[in-house]
């Protein structure tokens, strides 16, 4: 992707002012995105992202430079500009790259570049038609298609030289249901670390119909009541609760500088006994999976919480230095335009013992969140918020009428202790996670869980 001798020269230049470690990241990515609006192709764009990032460490300090010029002169110039931020004497570092190989665990069968645009579009049509035909109340359907083929190379002053190729495919289905006065939406965004075979493996019709069903259901839903209730959150994208309430606080990004409520808590009880949480980038072909992270570390299965006890964090190289801990294969970034930092891959709460039926039937009154929207968290205080896309009241142990416009707010550390039932139906959902190193594909997951009390914000009042 870039001449090895040039990389060698860049690293040497980057270390010329006393830096103790330097790394080069090369990215070359082909992207296709198509938008289908009301069954017609509205836009189709393809392009090539290409650029090089150079990172230098000096103790705990980090310097990052990037460019998409790829001639030797420009690259050496920017390396030297970046190095100027350090003013020490040059250290003796000998460069000797050793090409690292590994077993690819995310096999791709049909690379996007080999698939004709019309075939990609027919996938979109199938989902779009299913959504449109679901009900007369569906007024608009938008389907987005995305595929990307990202090749990366990481080389560093410790001799690392490793490449990875990530192929991802995703569909975004949004259905709008409308009557005279109102509109509501339903959304589905299935994706995987796979090529075009992904669309042949999933039931497109079902996804389209499900997006439409949510929109229509919400059009006829009452405003959600507000107050403090037990909340049952179903599987798949429901895992966003853990992602927001706890996951971000376990990233070294906030732990290393002790900006997280979970800093210095390894070995302590941070959740109820029935909670075990994991971040695992090795699940074959999952949306958030990678072979090696964006710092060249192999990904692994990291146990974060085991039976309520905090076991570990997600750690990148720089923050690992500050924490005196080893990286965990969690260094990620949106593109060469960002320096990597610790991020989640596929994060989930492990399956428990209760059946979903049992959880609902044991809930006298509360909210059932069938599908969650997104959310956010302040890692310093642990305060989080997230939106319920499709919600229902639970009355007398039964799912009752649908409710809309519900937001759940709370405090991460508190909520973890309030998880009082964990289901046996673990499944995952796909999302894009935004943080300091940009927006990256991440899976969230969980079985159905019940939280004994969360503040629910809705428009109806108590």
């Amino acid at each position, binding site marked *: 992707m870039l001449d090895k001798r040039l990389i060698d020269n860049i690293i040497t230049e980057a270390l010329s002012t006393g830096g103790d470690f330097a790394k080069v990241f090369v990215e070359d990515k082909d992207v296709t995105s198509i938008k289908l609006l009301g069954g017609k192709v509205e836009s189709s764009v393809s392009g090539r992202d290409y650029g090089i990032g150079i990172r230098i460490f000096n103790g705990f300090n980090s310097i990052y430079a990037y460019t998409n010029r790829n001639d030797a002169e420009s690259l050496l110039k920017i390396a030297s500009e970046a190095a100027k931020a350090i003013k020490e004497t040059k250290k003796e570092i000998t460069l000797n790259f050793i090409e690292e190989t590994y077993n690819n665990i995310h096999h791709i069968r049909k690379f996007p570049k080999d698939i004709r645009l019309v075939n990609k579009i027919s996938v979109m049509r199938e989902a779009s038609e299913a959504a449109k035909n679901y009900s007369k109340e569906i007024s608009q359907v938008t389907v987005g298609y995305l595929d990307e083929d990202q090749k990366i190379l990481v080389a560093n002053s410790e001799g690392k030289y490793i490449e990875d190729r990530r192929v991802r495919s995703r569909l975004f289905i949004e259905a709008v249901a409308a009557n005279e006065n109102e509109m509501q939406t339903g959304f589905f965004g299935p994706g995987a670390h796979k090529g075009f075979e992904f669309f042949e493996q999933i039931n497109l019709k079902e996804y389209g119909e499900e997006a439409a069903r949510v929109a229509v259901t919400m059009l006829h839903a009452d405003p959600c009541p507000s107050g403090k209730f037990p909340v049952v959150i179903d599987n798949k994208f429901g895992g966003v609760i853990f992602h927001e309430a706890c996951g971000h606080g376990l990233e070294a990004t906030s732990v290393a*500088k002790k900006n997280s409520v979970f800093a210095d808590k390894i070995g302590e009880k941070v959740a109820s006994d029935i909670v075990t949480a994991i971040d695992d980038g090795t699940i074959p072909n999952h949306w958030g999976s990678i072979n090696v992270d964006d710092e060249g570390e192999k990904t692994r299965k990291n146990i974060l919480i085991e039976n309520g006890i905090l076991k570990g964090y997600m750690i990148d190289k720089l923050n690992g230095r500050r924490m005196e801990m080893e990286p965990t294969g969690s260094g990620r970034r949106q593109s060469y335009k960002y320096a990597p930092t610790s991020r989640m891959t596929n994060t989930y709460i492990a399956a428990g013992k209760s059946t979903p039926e049992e959880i609902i039937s044991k809930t006298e009154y509360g909210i059932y969140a069938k599908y969650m929207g997104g959310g956010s968290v302040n890692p310093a205080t642990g305060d989080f918020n997230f939106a319920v896309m499709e919600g229902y009241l639970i009355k007398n142990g039964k799912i009752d009428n649908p409710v809309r416009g519900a937001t759940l707010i709370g405090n991460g550390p508190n909520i973890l202790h309030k998880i009082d039932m964990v289901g046996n139906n673990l499944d995952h959902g796909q999302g894009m996670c935004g943080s300091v190193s940009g927006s990256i594909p991440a899976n969230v997951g969980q079985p159905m869980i019940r939280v004994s009390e969360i503040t629910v914000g809705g428009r109806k009042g108590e």
Partner: protein
Amino acid sequence: MEILNLKDKIFEAGKEMGFDDMEISYVSNKKFNCKVFKDSIDDYSISIEGGISFRGVINNKMGYSYTEKVDETSINLLLKKARENAQVIENDDNEEIFEGSAIYERVDIFSDDYSHVKVEDKLQLLLNFAEEVYKQDERVAQILYNLYEDHESERMIFNTKGLSKIEKSNIGLIYFSILVKDSKDSKSSSILKVTRDFRDFDYKEMAKSVVEDALTLLGAEPVKSKDYSILLKNNAAASLLQTFKDIFSAENVQHGRSLLKNKLGEAIASNQITIIDDPHIKEKMASRSFDSEGVATKKCVIVEEGLLKTYLHNLKTAKKDGVSSTGHGYRNSYKGTITIAPTNLFIDSGDNTYDDLVKSIEEGLIITELQGLHSGANIVSGDFSLAAEGYFVKNGQIEKPVNQITIAGNFYELLKNIEAVGNDIEFTFPSEGYVGSPTLLIKKLAVSG
């Protein structure tokens, strides 16, 4: 210059491939940023980047492609991809390459002074800021996040209809987020300043303000759930308007994704509300003299005393509605197609001071911050339910800080329920437009605590 040379080669090769009209836009950006931890700079970053986007008409359809590898080796792929993309377009509203407007207003959005500020001064500013924050109060526990950043960018459009436009701009910003702690509670707050004048970074004033904001929130608690009068502070009001700005886009209206459809000339907001988009304000961050299609920009009154006057248009939506483009054609980068976005969009100032608005509340809440806007607000339905913080007000006096609450309502209804408008307009973080609002007094919203 290399890009001009490349442009000619692309147009030449494109013609041979069968394209009629063609256009390239090129955006380049030079960026610097740094962060401080404790008393030293611990993060420092520089970049030089650019990307080229091509679009061209072939068989009456527009095809798009882009590349960040800007050299001759990319020409063939760029054209082939664009042709392939054009072939699948089914939308009947044809996009056009624009030959240019008659007159372009000059907007001065490049500060020569700023471009000469020394790196040492930028680093020192950040260090001073951090030091000043800790000096404010012993309850300041930590700086959670901080950033100094500046950009110099240049955007260009060239097409085969003779359009040739270049605009250069720069911008700088500082952001601090801090945590304060007492024996019982901890609270964070943040401050952002975006400017084109380096002297605007009054770090002493900013440090004082961000620490004060956090300290006054210590001990905050939820309030009883019910409907309250809400004083939505300027920053919070601006972030809400930013979230719902796309309801004014003609594209959303035509696609059935805005409830403002068929509402031109009607009252969609309280008569105290006037909403303006003005691309020609020198100090504002989204100012520009031409839009992403090369159309000259102009000031545009969207809502006048509550009446909806116009939508925001690009060439395609304007043609469909039989009107002229309002100069709001927008692409979020060279990677996107042409959509619509505002420039400097704001609710016009009213007559009331913030203090008078507070005094006018019998019982209600001041909301100083809204969270989770990307998920808790539905721009299609207008519904929102958002985590919020602020203060409880009784008989015109602030009684106590409030947090862990949500406020819920509908944006379309909220516009109609604005009872008074402040004179303290503030803008939020620039992103697809630069959006501002004064403090707004809202009749009532559902609060959950």
